[in-house]
C-alpha cells in the first residue's frame, strides 16, 4: 500500500515534469514576446518623457527622496521610474556594474555616493559627458556648484547633489555626569583627547570617544592638511610623514590614550556602525548624515540628548580643513534620452538638499536659504539642537574643505590596501614605519598594474 503510494507519487512527478518541459518551451516564447512588448512600451513611454533611475530599496521608500522626485515631475512634466535594486548602497553596484558592462541603456540615471565610484565609472566609459548638454542648455554650472563640480580631463560627468561633511556629535548626559562643559567648537585634536579622557570611565564601561572602521579614520589629519594621496609622478604619496602621523594618531586613541575602543576590541566585539546610539560613548566623530539617526526614536530609543560641534583640527596648526564627500548624479552613457535625464540631474543636484537633509554642494546659496534648511532639521528633531549649533558645526565656521576620499588611479584598491595594512599596525602586528612602507609599495604596484 505504502509502496504503491510512493510509486504513484513518482509517476506523478515524472508526468508533471514532462508537462513542465513542454509548457516551458511554449512559455518561453510567450515570456520573450511579452517582455519584448513590455520593453517596447517602456521605450515608447520614454519618448513621451519618462526617465529611469537606479535606487536602492531604502531610497525607494525614503519619503524625502520621493518628495524631490514628485516635485520634479510636477515642475518639469517628466515622469520618473525607479529601478529599485535590493541590497545596501555598496551591494547594489554589483548588479548595476553587470548592467552597465553589458551596455544596457534602459536606466538613464545613477546616484553616485562617493567620488571613487564616479571615478570608476568615468574610467570605464559608462557615463555620458555632460559638457555638450551644459553648453546647449547655457547652464552656468560653475556659478552654482563652484569647486564642488568635479571634472576629469576637462569633462564633466556628474552634477554634485550633496557635500557631506564631518562633525562631532556628543552625548550631553555623559558630559553632565562627568561634570565636563560641552565643547564650544574651534578646537584641536589635543583638546578632543583631553575631553575624551575626562569622559572615559572604565568602571561604567563608558568611553569618551567613538570612531568606526572607515578608511578615512586612518588618514584623517593628513587629509585635513590637504596632503595628497598621490605624488606628482602619479605614485602613492603615503610615505609622506603626514600619513604616518595620522595613522599613529588614530591608533593612539584606542591603544595609548584608551579613550575609545581599540581596533582589536572594535573588531573582535563586532562593535556596530550605530554604536554611538547605545549611549555608552561621550563623543562620535562621524559624517553629518548622522543627524538623521537622532530622528529615529523608534529604532534608537534614548534617555539622553545629543549635541553637535565642529570637527577638531590638527594640533600643529598645519591644516584646518573639514573633509567633504561629494555625492553626485550622473547619466548612463547609453541612455536613450539624455536630455530628459539631464533635466532630472539638474533638478536633483539643485534641490536635493531642501528635502533630504544632505548638505548642499552649492556656492550660490544665501544665508536665508541655509537658515531655512537648518530650520527644517531643527523642527524635525524637536529643538534638541539649535539652528546656530548646526550652522556652526557644519557650515559657518573657520574650517576650509578638502576631499575625504583619495581619488586617482586604482582608488578603490588604494582604500582597501590602507584598511588591510593599517589593521596590522593597529593590533600591534607591524611597526608604524613598515606599515606605511608596505602601503606605499602595494599601492604603487596596483597603480602600475592598472596602467598596463
Amino acid at each position, binding site marked *: 500500500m505504502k509502496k504503491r503510494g510512493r*510509486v504513484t507519487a513518482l509517476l506523478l512527478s515524472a508526468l508533471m515534469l514532462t508537462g513542465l518541459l513542454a509548457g516551458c518551451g511554449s512559455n518561453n516564447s510567450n515570456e520573450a514576446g511579452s517582455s519584448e512588448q513590455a520593453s517596447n512600451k517602456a521605450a515608447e513611454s520614454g519618448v513621451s518623457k519618462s526617465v529611469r533611475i537606479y535606487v536602492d530599496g531604502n531610497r525607494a521608500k525614503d519619503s524625502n527622496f520621493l518628495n524631490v522626485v514628485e516635485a520634479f515631475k510636477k515642475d518639469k512634466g517628466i515622469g520618473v521610474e525607479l529601478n529599485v535594486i*535590493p541590497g545596501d548602497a555598496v551591494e547594489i553596484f554589483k548588479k548595476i556594474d553587470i548592467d552597465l558592462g553589458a551596455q544596457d541603456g534602459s536606466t538613464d540615471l545613477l546616484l553616485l555616493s562617493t567620488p571613487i565610484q564616479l571615478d570608476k565609472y568615468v574610467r570605464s566609459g559608462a557615463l555620458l559627458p555632460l559638457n555638450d548638454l551644459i553648453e546647449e542648455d547655457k547652464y552656468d554650472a560653475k556659478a552654482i556648484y563652484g569647486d564642488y563640480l568635479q571634472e576629469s580631463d576637462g569633462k564633466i560627468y556628474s552634477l554634485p547633489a550633496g557635500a557631506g561633511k564631518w562633525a562631532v556629535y556628543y552625548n550631553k548626559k555623559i558630559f553632565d555626569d562627568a561634570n565636563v562643559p560641552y565643547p564650544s567648537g574651534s578646537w584641536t585634536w589635543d583638546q578632543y583627547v583631553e575631553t575624551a579622557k575626562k569622559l572615559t570611565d572604565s568602571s561604567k564601561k563608558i568611553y569618551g570617544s567613538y570612531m568606526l572602521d572607515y578608511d578615512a579614520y586612518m588618514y584623517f589629519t593628513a587629509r585635513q592638511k590637504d596632503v595628497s594621496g598621490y605624488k606628482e609622478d602619479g605614485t602613492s604619496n603615503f610615505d609622506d610623514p603626514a600619513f604616518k602621523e595620522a595613522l599613529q594618531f588614530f591608533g593612539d586613541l584606542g591603544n595609548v590614550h584608551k579613550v575609545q575602543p581599540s581596533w582589536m576590541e572594535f573588531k573582535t566585539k563586532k562593535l556596530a556602525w550605530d554604536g554611538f546610539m547605545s549611549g555608552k560613548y561621550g563623543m562620535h566623530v562621524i559624517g553629518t548624515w548622522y543627524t538623521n539617526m537622532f530622528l529615529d526614536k523608534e529604532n534608537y*530609543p534614548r534617555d539622553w540628548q545629543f549635541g553637535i560641534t565642529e570637527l577638531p583640527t590638527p594640533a600643529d596648526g598645519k591644516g584646518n580643513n573639514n573633509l567633504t564627500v561629494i555625492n553626485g548624479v550622473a547619466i548612463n552613457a547609453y541612455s536613450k534620452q539624455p536630455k530628459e535625464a539631464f533635466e532630472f540631474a539638474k533638478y536633483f543636484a539643485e534641490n536635493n538638499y531642501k528635502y533630504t537633509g544632505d548638505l548642499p554642494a552649492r556656492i550660490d546659496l544665501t544665508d536665508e536659504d541655509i537658515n531655512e534648511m537648518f530650520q527644517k532639521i531643527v523642527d524635525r528633531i524637536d529643538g534638541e539642537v539649535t539652528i546656530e549649533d548646526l550652522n556652526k558645526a557644519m557650515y559657518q565656521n573657520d574650517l576650509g574643505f578638502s576631499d575625504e576620499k583619495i581619488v586617482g588611479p586604482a582608488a578603490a584598491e588604494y582604500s582597501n590596501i590602507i584598511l588591510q595594512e593599517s589593521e596590522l599596525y593597529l593590533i600591534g602586528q607591524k611597526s608604524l614605519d613598515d606599515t606605511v612602507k608596505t602601503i606605499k609599495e602595494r599601492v604603487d604596484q596596483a597603480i602600475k598594474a592598472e596602467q598596463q
Partner: protein
Amino acid sequence: MGSLLLSKKRETGFKPSTIIISIIVFVLGLMMIVPFLFMISAALKPNALIFSEPLKFIPDQIYWNNFKTIFHHEYFFKWYGNSIYIVVLTVIARFVVVTMAAYAFARLNFPFKEAIFFLFISTMMIPADTTVIARYMLYKSLHLYNTEWALIIPATFDVFFIFLLRQFFSGLPKEISEAAVVDGCSQFKIYYRIILPLAVPALVTMLLFTFIWTWNDFVNPFIFISSIDKQVVTVGLEYFQQQAGTDYGLQMAGACIIVIIPIILFAFSQKYFVEGIASSGVKG
C-alpha cells in the same frame, strides 16, 4: 506527536544508557540553537539594544516593528509565494532529471561513462562567481533573464546530487537488478520500482537540501531577476537595507521568517532516517 517519544512501541523496556544518551543529545541540541535564539531575540529588539545587551535573550519590552515593517511591505507575500513556486518546481524537475542520470551512472554500462561523469564533476570546481557574466549573457539570449525559469532550469541540472545518488545507488546489491532483468523488467521499471524505493533516505536528503539551498539562494535571484514583483523572499528582504549600514533587527526578523519552512522540513524529514528502512525494504 506520538512519534516524539520515538519508536518505543517496538521495544520492550529500555536501558539506562538510553536515558543518559537522551539527556546528552538534548543538551547538545540546546547548545546548537543558541544562534537561532539570538536571531529571534534580535528580531524583537530595537536596533540600539541588539549590541548593547546581546545576551539578554528576552527583551524587557517586545518590539514588533521589525516584523510589522516586513509584513506591511506591498510585495512581501508575493515574494514568499514566488520563493515557494520556484523551489517546488526546482525540486520536482531536479528530482526527475538527476535521479535518472544517477541511475545510469551507478548501474548501467555505456560508452565514456567514467569520462562523462568526471567531466560533470569537474564543473563543480569553478567558483560560481566567475561564471556570473557568462550566465547573464546566456540567460539574456535565451530570454530567461528576469523570468523564474532563469532560476529553475539551470538549477535542474545539478551535478552535486548526481554524485551523491550515484554513490548510494551503486551501494545497492547488484543481484536485485539482475533478477529483475531476468524477469523481463525494463530498465525504466527497475529504476522507478526497485532502485528509487530502496534509496529513500538518500532521496529525502536530496529533496531536503535542494529545497533548503534553493530557498536560501541569494546570488542567482539577485543577479538574474530584475523586477521587484518577480523577486524571491531572500533577495526581497534586502530591499529593506539601510543606506548607512545594516539594520540588524530587520535583518534578523527577515532571517526568522525565511528559516521557518526549512526547520519544519528538517523536523518532518527525520522520520525517514530511522534505522533499518533499507533492510526491511530488501526483505519486503
